[in-house]
Each structure stands twice: as C-alpha cells, then as structure tokens.
C-alpha cells in the first residue's frame, strides 16, 4: 500500500539551479504551467467571441469575471478596482491548483505550504505596501480601533497587531491543510479498497464500500476545491480593504 504522504513528494522533472539555489522544474511547476495554460486558453477562447448574445464558453468566462468582480466590489468597494486583476489571478490560480489536483496521478501544488504561504505573503505585503503608500503613517491607526475607551488600548493594540501579523499564517495554512487533508483521506480510503481486494474474492466484495465512500468524498473534495479558492480570494479582498478604507 502506497504511503498517503507520497503523493505530495516533489520530484524534479528538469533539474536546474541558479548558483546554489535549486530551481528545478518539478511536478509542482509542471502542474502550475498546465493550470496557467489551461486557464489562459479557456479565458482567451471565452473572450475571443465577443458576441452580444454569448455562447456557452463566453458565458462561463463572463460568469467567472462577474463572480470575482462582484466579490471585489462587495468587499473592497469601488476603489478596489485596481486590485481586481490580482484577485482574479489569485482565484484562478488557486482554483486551478485545487481542481486539477483532483485528477488522479496529478499533483496538487496548492497542498504545499511553500505555495500557499507565498501567495499569502504576497497579499500581506500588498496590504502593507499599498496601505503605507496611500495613507502614509496614518495606516498604523489600523491597529487603534476608533471608539474604544482609552484604558482598553494596552489590550486592544497588541491584539490587533497579532491578528494583523497572523493573517498570512492563517490564510496559507487554511488552504494547504484543507487540500492536504482531503487528499490524504482520499488516498487512505482508496488504500482500504486495495487492501480489501488483496485478501481475496470476499475482500473484493467488501472493498466496494470504500470505493463508494471515495466517490462521495471526491464529490465533496470538488466542493472544497472551489470553496477554498473562493475563501482565499474573499479574505484577500477583506485584507486589501484596509488599504482603501482605514476604518470601517
């Protein structure tokens, strides 16, 4: 029986290094490229038609656009338009990673802390950078909630600071842990079926149950894949809102 952890192993396809830093083209990178190519192809085809009455492809692309645009508009506001391409890319990139990862023998790059952590850090630094760019030092008033009594400040300010700096951690771990746990469960349940089948004819019959459970789990994982991409994008919106509206 295969180790359920083994599916997350990074295997170099094309070794490549820059100085002493290993930048090999791995299975992770391969699926990132596949996801990027697929999404670009799909969206280009969707955007190519430009007809007044959209076809299937076009309406799917436009729906995707409207969903993310609505997310940005509702969570950041009209000033969030500048972040729209970023949120859209983020959503598509994570969605591709999650969904493509459900294909057997593929690799789920969003199940790696390096990837989710990097994405979360990008969001974090964007908030920091644009917050200071737009508001200057006033940005740090984010940690001082307006309306709270003065004597509460020594408690509230550290809390706000912690909640601010813990954001990239929660954001990245939520996604990576969800993806990893889902894939481990799928693999373990599938392992039960294989183990049962290896006993004999009776075992093979018994092995039907894990297969049925795995089908249900796979459907559930499809849902999780979309929901987690959505959650990541929407939380990024919420965080980026601080850069346009300090107090809300």
């Amino acid at each position: 029986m295969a180790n359920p952890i083994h599916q997350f192993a990074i295997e170099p396809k094309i070794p490549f290094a820059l100085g002493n830093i290993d930048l090999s083209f791995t299975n992770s990178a391969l699926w990132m490229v596949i996801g990027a190519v697929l999404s670009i192809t799909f969206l280009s085809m969707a955007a190519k038609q430009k007809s007044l009455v959209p076809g299937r492809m076009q309406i799917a692309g436009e729906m995707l656009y409207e969903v993310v645009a609505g997310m940005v508009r509702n969570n950041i506001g009209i000033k969030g338009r500048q972040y729209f391409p970023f949120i859209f890319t983020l959503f598509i990139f994570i969605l591709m990673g999650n969904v493509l990862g459900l294909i057997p023998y593929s690799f789920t790059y969003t199940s790696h802390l390096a990837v989710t952590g990097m994405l979360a850090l990008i969001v974090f630094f964007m908030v920091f950078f644009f917050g200071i760019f737009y508001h200057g030092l006033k940005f740090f008033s984010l940690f001082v909630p307006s309306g709270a009594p003065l004597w509460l400040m020594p408690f509230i300010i550290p809390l706000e600071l912690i909640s601010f700096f813990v954001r990239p951690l929660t954001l990245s771990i939520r996604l990576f842990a969800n993806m990893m746990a889902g894939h481990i469960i799928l693999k373990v349940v599938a392992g039960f079926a294989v183990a049962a089948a290896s006993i004999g004819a009776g075992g093979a019959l018994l092995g039907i149950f894990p297969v049925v459970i795995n089908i249900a789990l796979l459907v559930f994982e499809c849902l999780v894949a979309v929901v987690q991409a959505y959650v990541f994008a929407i939380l990024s919106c919420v965080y980026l809102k601080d850069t346009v509206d300090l107090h809300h």
Partner: protein
Amino acid sequence: MRELSADIPKKIFHSLFCVALVFITSATLALAGDQTAETAAHHGDTDGLPQLDFSSYPSQIFWLIVTFTVLYTFFARKTLPEISGVLESRRDHIQNDLDTAEKLREEAEDAHRAYDEALEKARSEASNMFIESDNKIKEETTKKLQVFYERSSVEIKAAEEKIENAKSEAFEEMSTIAAEIASQAAEKIIGISTDINQAKTVIKSLHKNNKKAA
C-alpha cells in the same frame, strides 16, 4: 486623505506589482536558499512531510512567481479588459434598447394623450352643437306656436262671432217661424186672428224663461 485609485495609472500599477513580486521572490529565495543549505547540512533525509522539506521551497516559489506573473500579466492586460469590454458594450446596448423603448413609449403616450384630447374636444363640440340646435329648434317651435296661437285665436274669434251671428239670425228666424205657426194654429183652432208681432214677443219671453230655468 488622498484620492486613491486616481493616484496610480493602471499600467504603472501593473508594472509596480510585478516589480514588487520579483523583489519579494528574490528576498524569499535568498532566505530559502540559506535555509536549504542549513537543512541539507543537518539532515539529508526526505522522510518527513514533503511540505516541510525546505529544499523544495526555492523551486516551488520560483515557479509559482513565474506562472503567477505570466497569468497576472495576461489577465490584466488582455483577457479582463476584453471581457469587461464585451460586458460593457452589452450593457450599453441593453441600456440603449431600454432608452429607445422608453422614448417610443413616451411618444405613444403623447399620441394617446393627443387622441384623447381630440376625442374630448370633438365630444364637447358635438354636445355644444346638439344643445345649440336643440335650443334653436325649441325657439323656432315656440315662435311658430305663438304665431299659430295668435292667428288661430283671431280666427276662432271670427268664427265664434260668425256662429253667434248665425245663431242669433237662426233664432230670429225660428222665433218668427214659431210665431207664424202659433198664430196660424190659433186662427185654425180657435178662429181668431192674431197679431204676429205679439206672438213674437210671447215666444221671446218664453225663450227667456227657458233660459232662466236652464
């Protein structure tokens, strides 16, 4: 507070974003590189969680940034403006159609109002005309009736006079005849001659008495 989105033009924003990405990447890569060297030095095994194997971090982060930047550039420069253009043109088209429909509806309403007004006007005119002609007819009728009454009353009076005359004449004659018959009857029955004028007076008085009795 400064006006926010107006500060950075879109193109500069995208370039800035990419530069920031590259900067963060290189910083992270450098850090990760140090980390890699350290982990490799301490323990070369790969038995633990692959997610915590820091030696794979530089490559993952590098390819993440590469694909993400390509995706971002492509979406921000090409796909999203195209889709938003299509959506906008559709919205404009629909709005245009709605506006046209609204204009046409207003025109139809105006026409309807004008029609209603004309109808109302015609109706009031017709009723005026009716009242007028009715009044005229009534007036004429009363005038003609008046004339007729006057004439007929004159004629009736004349006729009455004539009748009265005829009546009195007839009465005169009848009383004469009656007197003659009475005198002749007296002559034949009793054999006395009578004065006809006296008979006449008698009859007249009789007639007078009759009238009184009546």
